[in-house]
C-alpha cells in the first residue's frame, strides 16, 4: 500500500516537474523564428501608414514615431545585411512621420 502511495506521489511529482520545466524548451524551440517575425510584423504595421501620413491625427503620428524608436534597437541587432536594409527603411518612415508632425506644428 505504502509502495503504491510512493509511486503515486512520484508520478504526481513527475507531472508537476514536467509541467514547469517543459514549456521553457518548447517555447524556445517554437520561438526561434518568432522574435524575428515579431519585429518584422511590427515594422510592417508601423511603416504601412506612410501613404496616409498627411491625414493621420497628431497623436497617432506621435505614437508611430515612438513605435519606430522602440523598434530601432531590435533592428540594430540583426545581421549586417538585414540591419542595413531595415535600418534605412525604418529611418525613412520614421522621418516622414516626424516631418508631418513638424509641418503640422508649424502651420
Amino acid at each position, binding site marked *: 500500500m505504502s509502495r503504491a502511495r510512493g509511486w503515486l506521489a512520484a508520478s504526481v511529482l513527475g507531472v508537476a516537474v514536467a509541467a514547469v520545466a517543459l514549456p521553457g524548451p518548447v517555447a524556445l524551440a517554437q520561438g526561434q523564428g518568432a522574435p524575428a517575425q515579431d519585429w518584422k510584423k511590427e515594422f*510592417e504595421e508601423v*511603416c*504601412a501608414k*506612410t*501613404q*496616409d*501620413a*498627411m*491625414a493621420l491625427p497628431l497623436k497617432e503620428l506621435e505614437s508611430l514615431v515612438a513605435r519606430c524608436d522602440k523598434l530601432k534597437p531590435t533592428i540594430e541587432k540583426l*545581421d*549586417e*545585411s*538585414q540591419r*542595413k*536594409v*531595415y535600418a*534605412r*527603411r525604418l529611418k*525613412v*518612415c520614421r*522621418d*516622414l512621420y*516626424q*516631418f508631418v508632425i*513638424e*509641418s503640422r506644428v*508649424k*502651420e
Partner: protein
Amino acid sequence: MRRWVLFLAVSAVFAGSAFAEQPGSKKRRPLPPEFGRVIINNTSEKAGMAAVSFDHWYHRAKYTCRVCHVDVGFAMKPGATGIKAADNQAGFYCGACHNGKLVVDGRTVFESCGKALIGENRQACLRCHSVGKNVPPSIDFKAFTKNLPVGRLGNGVDWEKAEEAGLIKPSDFLEGVSIPRQPMTAQKDFALTAKLQGMPEIIFSHKKHTVWNGCELCHPEIFVGVKKGATKYSMVEIFDGKYCGACHVTVAFPLTDCGRCHTRPVQ
C-alpha cells in the same frame, strides 16, 4: 516677347552650365542609353572585379522609384548604400529581384553574385561588373524604346507619357519586400515663383511625383523644409544635385529641359 527671349537666354545659360562642371574640363553629355547610368564601386575593384554599371532605364520601366529606393532600400546617392556581394546573396538589394527565381515579363531574372557563379564562371559576373569591359547589353536599348513616346533629352523617352499610354506599367509592389499599402491621396499641386523676373513659374505636381515616389522618398531627405516658402531653392544648388536635382540631374528628365517645370506664363 521680351520675357520669352529672357527665358530662352536663361535656359541657354543653365544648359551650358550643366556641361561645364569644372574650368578647363568639358563633361560629355550622356548618350540616351547612358543617361541614368550609375557606377557602383564600393568593394568591386578591391575584390578584383570590375565596377558595376547600373542602367536606370530598364529598371524604371518595370518598377517605380519607390520600390527600389524605399522598399528595397537603395540610397539616393551612388555608393551610399554600401552593397556587398553577401547582401545580394542573402536576398537584399540587387538580390531582392536578381535571385534566379523572380519572373518578370516571362523572363527569369538572373541571379546576382550567386555563390555558384563565383570562381567557376566569372563570365556571368560581367553582366553587372562591366565597367571597362566590352559587354554587349542583354536588352537592347533601341529595340526596347522604339515604341515609347519621344522625349527631348535624357533617355530620349517621355517616361510619363509612356506610362499614361500604358506602354510601360511600373509595378509599385515587390512580393516579399514591399508592405501592402492603401492607394494614396495625392497632395495638391502648387506654384513656385521663379527668382528671376520674367521667368515662367514652376508648377509642381504632387500627383506626378507621388505616383512613382510616395512621400517618404522625398520628405524629409531631399525636401526638408516643412513650411511652404521657407526653403529658398537656387538653380545652382539644384544643378549640384540638391532638391529637384537629386533625380532631375541623373535619372528623371534633365534640368536642361526647362520648359517642363517652368510652365506657367507670368501674369
